């Protein structure tokens, strides 16, 4: 598995040393709050409602068990014994003391983890398909490319003070588990007619108050030219992006105002002047080294006479949480951390250590984190899946709710976040309580409900089957409902159902929507397929009748 070299680790420590000096100047009154804010955000540190929040990157969502144990240790030593896995392959701690931040970051740097650019107006953590390298039909494992792009934009001298934050996602798989077209910039690995590897580039997507699907700005950028193309895309944004209006800072507004065609042209004109610069070519030697580092640790396996165990609960769990691995003899196992009444994505240090132990035992010491805030065991022998399930059950990590509607994605919401307009987690709990019948849950199948407490849309409600957005109306918490958003096959922003619904009525509304789906479903149709066939009207009528 890929690990940072000594010089990379030294760089991380140098970054911490510098930040510690800046912190000291701030505390001594020599660095004002506005500038310190800008600097601390670039080191992942937020001021939240009750304390400081630190966001640590899990680049491309891949963790080894040493790293997960280090994250557990941080949770115990510096937080209140838990961490929150986010929708963008980061982990957040909510109770960090300013005076301890440097030591915390030094500890993480020793296992190759950091919080650099996990916030602020710069290139954020680069996300990848959490199943990179594991699924059939994939063009290429996205992670070596992610790592090279991550490095390149790490403290980039020209692009560290952009108009707004800049989120990049890379996908090489058939299905898009990254939601790349709702990112500032999305890269899809493709092959051209000649069979050469490259990227289709999409720019200007985003959720938030003005949700937009990113426009294609280049159908094929050869792999070795991707860094120069990305630089040009960012240079146009850096020079022309809106800086005058706080709600229009993201690149989606620039792309919308210029028009995708004109933006693409400007990028192309700039790129023409740099693409042949040998210093800007992707380093193919580094790439091939990284490909070796990210190579799967397993070979095809023939398990003679294997028959999986028959057990009702196991079968339900397996149906929802185990996927085929492209290497024969292995499975991909998904573990949900969601429990009734807790913030989705929250994990205690004890859970983290259990997961690390189990990953050592069953999954070659490797784990992945996903945008559904779950943890993936990437390589589990088929004849050990049952044993793993039993262990997960023992520790309360194999809820049969997983993979059903009850596995809700929600941001921390009004209970924890000072940006929130309404609560998220209590709504998630009430939905889970309403749908507590296992037979019904299984009948409904995989249906996404995502709940964001404000327009920042941390829970990606726009791209869920049912999305809820918290807002204030006449001093009360209300929820705007969107339906039939998706990203897996195609990227579609959910449609607004109608006027917002009060907190008291929102769970009824969710149930109504689910019932319209069930009443109209033919055979194995998914929610979005039913929606496409019958339109929004029946849903509207049921909810607002």
């Amino acid at each position, binding site marked *: 598995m890929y690990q940072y070299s000594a*010089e*990379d680790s*030294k*760089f991380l420590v*140098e*970054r911490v*040393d*510098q930040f510690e*000096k*800046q912190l000291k*100047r701030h505390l001594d009154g*020599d*660095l004002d*709050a*506005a*500038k310190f*804010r*800008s*600097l601390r955000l670039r080191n992942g540190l937020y001021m939240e409602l009750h304390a400081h929040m630190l966001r640590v990157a899990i680049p491309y969502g891949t963790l080894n068990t040493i790293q997960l144990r280090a994250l557990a240790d941080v949770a115990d030593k510096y937080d209140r014994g838990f961490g929150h896995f986010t929708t963008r392959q980061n982990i957040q701690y909510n109770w960090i003391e300013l005076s301890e931040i440097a030591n915390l970051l030094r500890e993480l740097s020793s296992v190759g983890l950091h919080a650099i650019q996990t916030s602020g*107006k710069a290139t954020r953590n680069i996300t990848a398909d959490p199943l990179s390298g594991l699924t059939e039909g994939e063009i290429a494992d996205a992670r070596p490319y992610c790592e090279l792009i991550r*490095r*390149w*934009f*790490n*403290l*980039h*001298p*020209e*692009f*560290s*003070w*952009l*108009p707004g934050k800049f989120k990049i996602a890379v996908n090489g798989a058939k299905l898009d588990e990254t939601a790349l077209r709702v990112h500032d910039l999305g890269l899809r690995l493709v092959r051209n007619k000649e069979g050469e590897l490259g990227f289709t580039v999409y720019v200007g997507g985003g959720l938030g108050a003005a949700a937009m699907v990113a426009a294609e700005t280049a159908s094929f950028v050869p792999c070795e030219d991707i*860094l120069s193309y990305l630089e040009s895309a960012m*240079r146009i944004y*850096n*020079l022309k992006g809106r*800086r005058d209006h*706080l709600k229009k800072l993201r690149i989606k507004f620039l792309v919308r105002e210029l028009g995708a065609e004109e933006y693409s042209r400007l990028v192309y004109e700039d790129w023409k*002047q*740099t693409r042949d*610069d040998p*210093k*800007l070519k992707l*380093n193919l030697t*580094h790439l091939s080294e990284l490909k070796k580092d990210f190579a799967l640790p397993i070979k095809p396996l023939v398990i003679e006479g294997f028959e999986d165990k028959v057990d009702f609960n196991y079968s339900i769990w397996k149906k929802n949480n185990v996927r085929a691995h492209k290497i024969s003899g292995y499975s991909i196992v998904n573990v949900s951390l969601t429990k009734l009444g807790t913030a989705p994505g929250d994990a205690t240090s004890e859970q983290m250590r259990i997961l690390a132990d189990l990953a050592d035992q069953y999954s070659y010491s490797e784990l992945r984190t996903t945008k559904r805030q779950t943890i993936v065991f990437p390589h589990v022998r088929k004849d050990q899946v049952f044993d793993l399930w039993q262990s997960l059950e023992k520790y309360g990590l194999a809820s049969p709710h997983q993979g059903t509607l009850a596995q809700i994605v929600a941001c921390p919401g009004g209970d924890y976040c*000072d*940006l929130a307009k309404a609560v998220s987690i209590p709504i998630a709990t009430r939905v889970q309580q309403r749908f507590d019948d296992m037979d019904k849950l299984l009948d409904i199948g995989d249906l996404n409900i995502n709940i964001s407490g404000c327009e920042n849309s941390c829970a990606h409600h726009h791209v869920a089957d049912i999305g809820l957005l918290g807002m204030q109306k006449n001093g009360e918490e209300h929820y705007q409902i969107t339906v039939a958003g998706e990203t897996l096959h195609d990227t579609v922003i959910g449609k607004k159902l109608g006027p917002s619904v009060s907190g008291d009525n929102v769970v009824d509304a969710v149930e109504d929507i689910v019932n319209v789906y069930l009443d109209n479903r033919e055979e194995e149709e998914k929610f979005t397929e039913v929606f496409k066939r019958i339109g929004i009207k029946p849903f509207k009528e049921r909810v607002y009748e």
Partner: protein
Amino acid sequence: MSESNELTAASATLETKVAESRTLDTSVLNKDNERIELVSVEQWIENLDELSKLGVGVIVNPSDDVTLLKDTLNDITLIALDFNNFDDGRGYSQAYLLSKRWQYGGEIIGINAHLDQLQFMLRSGVTSYKLLEGYEGFDELDYSNGFSICYQAAANNSGLKEKF
């Protein structure tokens, strides 16, 4: 961004705007400690023939379009990029274009510079700088050269091990 943060940022922008109008530099000391008169990009373009004989420098604000200077770079004695607004990163792209792409050979001085941004300015192509007041007494090397390694090509990577 939270509302309180937005307000902070908005007031910071406002403060910067006020500061910009207050401290609009009309001359600057170059690296050899000679005083160079500065003209705006607009003035330079309008009075090119006259000004190019006078050995003046051009002051570039973040909102200026540096491509306007591209064809007359050889006549400009010095270019001053204004980094007063901490969060406005346009100066870094301006420095890159002038220094790396158009190979401007004169001094590119970063004025109203912030200590914490020296590493970004210098690597983007700024060749000298003048810090804002209030940064005295700190080791500039911590911020201009605090790293042993860099991960990307840039206008100036001197002193850094390149890993890319």
